[in-house]
């Protein structure tokens, strides 16, 4: 069976959402939704039941840390990759403690994103 991985892209930046979608195009994915704020992200997460989420932290409505906490309560098996400009250890640690499977810092190159995404998919 050739089932595609369901991906939800969450970032308040339009160009980052576009760049993530473009760069992950080589993976067997179906983008089930994109969201530009935390509240919409949670609505889409419940509605589309994605396998994988890319999640920004600094966003309007609800920040990514609060969103991640909620997502893990709804489905702890979802694989969440946090993609943020916040380059401090405390933020990375908090995200991982809450259940993020991967954490990368903006700005990212295509190679960095693909490599981290690939490693995340391999994790159980």
């Amino acid at each position, binding site marked *: 069976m050739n089932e595609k991985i369901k991906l939800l892209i969450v970032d*308040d*930046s*339009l*160009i*980052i959402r*576009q*760049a993530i979608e*473009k760069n992950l195009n080589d993976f067997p994915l179906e983008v089930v939704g994109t969201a530009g704020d935390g509240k919409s992200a949670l609505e889409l997460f419940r509605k589309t039941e994605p396998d994988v989420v890319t999640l920004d932290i*600094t*966003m*309007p409505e609800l920040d990514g840390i609060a969103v991640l906490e909620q997502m893990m309560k709804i489905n702890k098996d979802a694989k969440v990759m946090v993609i*943020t*400009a*916040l*380059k*401090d250890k*405390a*933020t990375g640690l908090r995200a991982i403690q809450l259940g993020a499977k991967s954490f990368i*810092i*903006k*700005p*990212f*190159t295509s190679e960095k994103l693909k490599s981290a995404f690939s490693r995340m998919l391999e994790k159980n």
Partner: protein
Amino acid sequence: MNETDLHFFIDSTVNYFEEVTSESAVTGIPYLKGKEPVVLDYSGIIGISGKRKGCVYITTTRDMLEELANIILGNQDAAVETVKDLTGEIANTISGNVREAYGSSFMISVPVVVEGRAKDIRLPEHVQAFVIPITWKDFKSFLVVCLE
């Protein structure tokens, strides 16, 4: 603000262009902002709160944003909304990356993007603002840092 603060922002700016485009940006000597407006086609503004207070903004030209957007997305025709959005994302990334130096008590807002050169960007009146000139390829931009 002191020289060390400025270096954090300069390093973050240089790193942004290097990572995204593989082509370094060159920063000029920072200077104190006077009453003259420092505003180009699009400006991305970030409010800073927590231990440090103030704001950071990058102001740049449409030409530079189009060139950068084309590199990021690999196409020739970035839409106006995309170009505008990119201004905010650059400001967000430069400001977010300096948390490596300041820690998580350096809190950044979501970006606000202002279009047009008509007016200056309003900054806190009692705080000195520094202007860091940036040249990437042949494009000029300015990063303005105004922190208590």
